[in-house]
Every structure is written in structure tokens, then in C-alpha cells.
């Protein structure tokens, strides 16, 4: 490609695609930022209630999920390294591992939520209506924030599945890997949000 980059037929600018992805990540950060703002205000107003309510959550499951996500974040970063080093087979395996980790995270989440639902603790339930205000707010935020986060996990998985097939078809290769790079960036974003979500939801004293 020439330095001037004036192309009629095929215009390709990986830097632009990456900048675009980063800007999108900014919007996602602020989307969750709005929720963290709400969280911080209600936690400040009801510190004791938030502590009591957080005891309902199992720290063990939270830790497992944290490690699962951190690990998946590393594997997808390694997948990018692999593709840059032109090791297609390893890249495919690493993406597959990442997807497996994402699945484990979601299954864990499913049991965690299911456990609450069994006890009648879900938005709009009769039990929720009886709770104290602080407890109610905590669980409202818990379901909304982790729910939205899980939704992002699913979106990230879809992106990575597409990336997987693109690597397989060689349309993502050691020379043009920006799709995988952007998919990986999105996946790290999901991890990044969880890094803050975990201590704020599970570890309240």
C-alpha cells in the first residue's frame, strides 16, 4: 500500500478500524459508568443494607468466575499473538478455549441466579417487595448490572465465534488480523467491567 492511501477500489485502514473499536469501548464504559454512578450513590446512602444483602452472594462463585474471565482474557490475547506469529492452529485452539471459558462463566451465572430465583428473590417478586429499601436497591442493581454484563458476554461470544470462522477461512491471517484484534478488545472490555463489578458486588464490608 502506498503512504498516501488514495485508493479507489479497496480502502483499508486498520488503524481507523481499531480507533473505531476503542471509541465504541468508550461508549460501553460510560454505559456501565452510569450504573456504577447509581451504585455508588445508593451504596453511600445505605452502607449497612448493602453489606447485609451482599452476604447472600457466594464469594466462591464470584472468585471462580473472576478467574475464569481473567484466564479467558489471557487466552484471547494469546490467540492474537498466535495469529500475528502465523500459528493458525494454536490461534483456533485459543479462541475455542476462550469461548469455553465464557460458557463456564455463563453456566456459573445461571446457577447463581437460579439459586436466588428458587428463594423467591427476583425482580418484581413478592419477597423483593417486602425487603428494606437498601436491600431492594442492592438486589435491583445486582440483577441489572450482572444481567447487562452477561448480555455483553453473549455479544462478545458471538463476535469471537465469527472471528473463529474467519481465522479458519484464512480471511483473518497474520497480515490482516484487525477483526480478531477488535473482537479481543471487546472481550477485554467485558473482563475489565467484571474486575470492578466483582469487589463492588461480592466484597462489601
Amino acid at each position: 500500500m502506498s503512504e498516501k492511501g488514495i485508493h479507489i477500489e479497496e480502502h483499508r485502514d486498520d488503524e481507523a478500524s481499531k480507533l473505531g473499536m476503542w471509541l465504541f469501548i468508550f461508549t460501553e464504559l460510560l454505559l456501565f459508568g452510569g450504573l456504577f454512578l447509581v451504585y455508588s450513590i445508593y451504596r453511600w446512602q445505605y452502607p449497612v443494607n448493602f453489606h447485609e444483602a451482599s452476604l447472600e452472594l457466594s464469594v466462591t462463585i464470584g472468585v471462580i468466575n473472576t478467574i475464569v474471565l481473567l484466564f479467558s482474557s489471557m487466552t484471547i490475547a494469546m490467540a492474537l499473538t498466535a495469529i500475528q506469529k502465523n500459528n493458525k492452529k494454536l490461534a483456533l485452539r485459543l479462541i475455542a478455549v476462550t469461548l469455553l471459558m465464557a460458557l463456564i462463566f455463563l453456566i456459573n451465572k445461571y446457577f447463581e441466579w437460579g439459586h436466588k430465583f428458587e428463594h423467591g428473590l427476583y425482580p418484581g417478586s413478592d419477597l423483593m417487595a417486602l425487603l428494606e429499601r437498601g436491600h431492594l436497591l442492592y438486589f435491583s442493581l445486582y440483577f441489572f448490572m450482572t444481567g447487562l454484563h452477561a448480555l455483553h458476554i453473549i455479544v462478545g461470544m458471538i463476535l469471537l465465534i465469527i472471528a473463529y470462522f474467519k481465522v479458519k477461512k484464512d480471511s483473518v491471517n497474520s497480515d490482516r488480523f484487525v477483526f480478531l484484534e477488535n473482537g479481543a478488545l471487546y472481550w477485554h472490555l467485558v473482563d475489565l467491567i467484571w474486575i470492578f463489578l466483582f469487589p463492588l458486588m461480592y466484597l462489601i464490608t
Partner: protein
Amino acid sequence: MDHNKTHITEYKVLAKILLLLIFCTFLTISITSFNLAAFTVTIALLIAGVKGFLVLSYFMHLKYESLLLRILVGSIFLLFIIIVLITFIDYSFR
């Protein structure tokens, strides 16, 4: 166009970062098990900040990106912190 010149992060570096991140996770848990009143949440958030910094700089390759992008990412977090602080000007004096 410099898409051939991108920095490649070695597997070993990534693995080390993961170990650091897991270490930080357990550090948070052990620290928050003591009751240090208001300090606990500060420390927990600080550690989370360190973890976020590691993810951003190594996993997301920010360390090797242009200065512009690094400034932009920094300002996003700064903007968010300012918005939170301003909102608390209302709530903490009500």
C-alpha cells in the same frame, strides 16, 4: 500503513500478567475480610484500578499504542470520575 509493524506481545508476558491479576484478586479478598471501615472500599477500588491498568496496558496493548489513544483512554476515566464527584456534591450535602 504500519499494520506489519505492530508490537507482538509474547505468550510469557501474557501469562505473567494473568498470574499478577489472580494474585491481586486474592489480595482484594483477604483485605476486604478485615473491617477497615471506609478504607476497605478505597483499597478494593485501588486494587481493581491496578488490575484494570494491567488489562488495559498489556492485554489491550495500550502500552504500545499511540500517545493520543492513551490520553483519550485516560480522559474517559477522568471524565467519569469528575461526573461522579460532581454528583456527590449534591448527595453529600443534602
